[in-house]
């Protein structure tokens, strides 16, 4: 059964092996989803992608939006118009959407609105590891935090119900280890959508001019009180086990706590917080008052811990509260069973399992011998060619602000062509800042999806203020890093039908960039020439380096039964100069010790290495039957 079938036809009461993100998508459908909107971002992407796959069998509208702010507005408005809606993003996406998010809490909704924030402790695929539970506090937004895929599904349904009960958006906060854990998930019944969209005018609620906003703020705080009462009673805030020792935890950390108790053979009462904003203050106070010691276990910020301290102070509860403030746990990175076992053991003055010491001694020597293997650009990736060309055209004398996408991987050797990165779209704004203060070529790189996401305002700024930035739009016709989602430049919509394709060059010209050129990065000489021209141009210039993602191109060739013709090295002609390896470093290139060679199974046949070989030693080989 493929995911589309499980989502729309999977039987209630039956277990399916689902990824946490797939479980959230199913939960939304069970809750009678009518509209979902997203901008993809790891670790959230599979939620939207599953809904995208199932859209033809489902009864909901789905769209990939230009960015998270737009997605929040789309879903927020739909929920105001009485349609159950879901909006999905990664943690940093909520920064982009935060303006809309904050005021949505003021106006509230009429049908359920669930906002998924997928946080990334450990920065597996992100530029930071911010803790979005603090957004719930900032926005006074009711929040649920699942610990595993089953809870992720069940809490999604519960979040829709809560949202409708409170007429407020509800934040479903997950982390990488919930989103990307697969387990058996028992499905529930699918409720029919309400099918009653209706915009009931109420401008003194929904139009947040200052007089309205002032009126809505106390209403929002009343909602928080109402939600607190729910939080005191909800079964999502539950105590598991008994003992003089109390542990307060939430999300994925709960799992590690249970494993730690077993490993350390401890008896404890574990307060598992599922509804983590607003917190069940009275219940937590009662819990702490009955314990000899309380340990708080949570990833990232001491969110529960600080609340627990404040709650204890209020009731003059003197129980020791042990956590990050004493250094038993870190605010950095994701937890593992081991970090929790060690933290709990230290907090209680118990010994850590002795086998850890033995393993640590052995592993430190062993790991020192293992060469690092960071993620790299795929074999035949057109970005590799583009950045080789930028490096050549600028003689590596420029500064290279970069952006969020596969091309950020050029930070790795041999290209090492990334100098500055903040967030989605930042390459153009940071390029403007650098040109304002430096007299050097500033060449910013931005992907096609990122360009539409938040690059355009930066480009308008460059034109308006006449910064002579050189912007290379690396257009591989997809949102590659997050799993090949469509975007405005591809024209395919989230409903799986053609929309209107938006031309990057037309946008650039439209906002007033006078130098706009489109190149094919797999044509090395012509591309370098175009980049030199752009560098010499007096004013902002945009070069669109257009070539499809190598993974998609290989897949297209396979399904069209087109041959993939790998290149090979003529060992007679190869002089061992290492230009192909040291300047390009394709993932399909290997080095025999004396000369270059190519892994035929990996080579995509892009031919870039053949073009840069000074001895013309690389040529097309035989067509390859590829799995």
């Amino acid at each position: 059964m493929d995911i589309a079938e499980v989502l729309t036809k999977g039987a209630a009461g039956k277990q399916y092996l689902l990824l946490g993100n797939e479980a959230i998508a199913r939960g939304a459908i069970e809750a009678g989803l009518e509209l979902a909107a997203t901008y993809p971002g790891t670790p959230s992407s599979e939620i939207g992608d599953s809904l995208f796959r199932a859209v033809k069998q489902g009864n909901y509208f789905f769209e990939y939006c230009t960015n998270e702010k737009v997605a929040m507005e789309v879903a927020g408005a739909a929920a105001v118009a009485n349609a159950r809606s879901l909006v999905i993003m990664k943690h940093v996406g909520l920064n982009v959407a935060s303006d809309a998010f904050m005021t949505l809490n003021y106006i509230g909704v009429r049908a359920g609105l669930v906002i998924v924030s997928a946080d990334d402790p450990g920065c597996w695929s992100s530029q930071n590891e911010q803790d979005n539970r603090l957004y719930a506090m900032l926005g006074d937004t009711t929040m649920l935090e699942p610990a595993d895929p089953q809870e992720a599904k069940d809490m999604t349904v519960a979040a829709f119900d809560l949202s409708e009960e409170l007429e407020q958006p509800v934040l479903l906060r997950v982390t990488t280890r919930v989103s990307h854990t697969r387990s058996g998930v028992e499905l529930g019944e699918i409720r029919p959508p309400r099918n009653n969209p209706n915009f009931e005018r109420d401008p003194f609620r929904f139009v947040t001019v200052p007089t309205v906003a002032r009126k809505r703020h106390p209403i929002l705080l009343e909602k928080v009180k109402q939600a607190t009462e729910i939080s005191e009673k909800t079964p999502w805030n539950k105590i598991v086990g008994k003992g003089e020792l109390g542990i307060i935890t939430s999300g994925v950390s709960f799992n590690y706590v249970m494993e730690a108790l077993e490993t350390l053979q401890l008896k404890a009462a574990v307060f598992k917080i599922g509804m983590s904003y607003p917190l069940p203050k009275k219940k937590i106070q009662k819990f702490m008052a009955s314990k000899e010691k309380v340990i708080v276990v949570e990833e990232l910020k001491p969110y529960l811990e600080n609340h627990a301290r404040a709650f204890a102070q209020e009731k003059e509860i003197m129980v020791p509260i042990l956590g990050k403030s004493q250094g038993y746990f870190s605010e950095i990175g994701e937890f593992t069973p081991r970090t929790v076992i060690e933290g709990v053991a230290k907090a209680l003055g118990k010994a850590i399992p002795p086998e850890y010491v033995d393993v640590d001694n052995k592993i430190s020597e062993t790991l020192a011998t293992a060469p690092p293997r960071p993620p790299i650009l795929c074999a035949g990736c057109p970005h590799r060619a583009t950045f080789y060309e930028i490096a050549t055209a600028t003689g590596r004398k420029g500064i290279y602000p970069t952006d969020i996408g596969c091309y950020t991987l050029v930070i790795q050797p041999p290209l090492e062509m990334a100098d500055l990165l903040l967030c989605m779209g930042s390459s153009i704004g940071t390029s403007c800042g650098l040109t304002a203060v430096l007299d050097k070529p500033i060449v910013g790189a931005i992907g096609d999806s990122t360009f539409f996401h938040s690059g355009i305002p930066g480009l308008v700024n460059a034109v308006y203020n006449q910064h002579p930035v050189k912007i290379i739009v690396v257009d591989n016709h997809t949102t590659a890093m997050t799993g090949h989602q469509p975007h405005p430049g591809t024209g395919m919509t989230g409903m799986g039908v053609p929309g209107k394709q938006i031309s990057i060059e037309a946008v650039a010209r439209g906002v007033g960039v006078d130098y706009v050129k489109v190149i094919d990065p797999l044509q090395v000489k012509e591309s370098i020439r175009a980049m030199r021209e752009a560098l010499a141009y007096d004013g902002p210039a945009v070069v669109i380096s257009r070539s499809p993602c190598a993974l998609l191109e290989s897949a297209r060739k396979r399904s069209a039964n087109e041959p993939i013709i790998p290149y090979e090295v003529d060992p007679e002609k190869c002089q061992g100069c290492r230009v192909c390896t040291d300047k390009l470093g394709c993932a399909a290139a290997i080095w025999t010790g004396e000369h270059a060679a190519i892994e035929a199974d990996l080579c995509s046949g892009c031919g870039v290495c053949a073009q840069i070989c000074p001895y013309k030693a690389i040529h097309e080989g035989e067509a390859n039957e590829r799995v």
Partner: protein
Amino acid sequence: MKEYNIMFTGVGGTGVLTAARILASAALAEGENVRMGEIHGMAQRGGAVNCTIRIGKSVHGPIIPTGKANLLLSVEPVEALRNVDRIMPSGTIIVGEYRITPTGVLLGRDKYPSDEAILQDLAKFAKVITFDAAKLAQEAGGILTMNTVLIGAIIGLNLIPIKEETVIAAIKEILPERYQAMNISAFEKGKKIQKRRLQSSGLG
């Protein structure tokens, strides 16, 4: 089952995730509690990846604690090395002898250890079994079936408490039809070579 942990490691893009899903799906089909930890996104692009499959009643989270893996599987020797802290002393490490050279090594900035050094290091932690999984995968129809060869090997060795027919059913459930035959062939090859090895080396 109380608890059985498998660490499946390798290089992004070589099918580790799919192979791990086959095992997780088979375990679920046998009515077990299963947790599988996956790596997606940036970490997948040719970088080191690991998948965890945890089976049994006492399993909660997706991450295998230090020294708690019953099995460590990797077609790539260095990737076995990178994750060897998870294996338990009574566990088994299975390594396919298929080197994938990291860019740093290609550029001469890092060194790839010798096979002997890797095996020696691995053997400090648990029993090691190695064989040429890539060759068997090529014979079965393609290099990307390497991880299925490893699955065949652990079934042949009776190393996991899952039935062969459940694993074959999972292969058919998870893989697209056009890849099923070659993967079942890869599975069979893995299964047989291990049995032969066992007899000749006197292991087990």
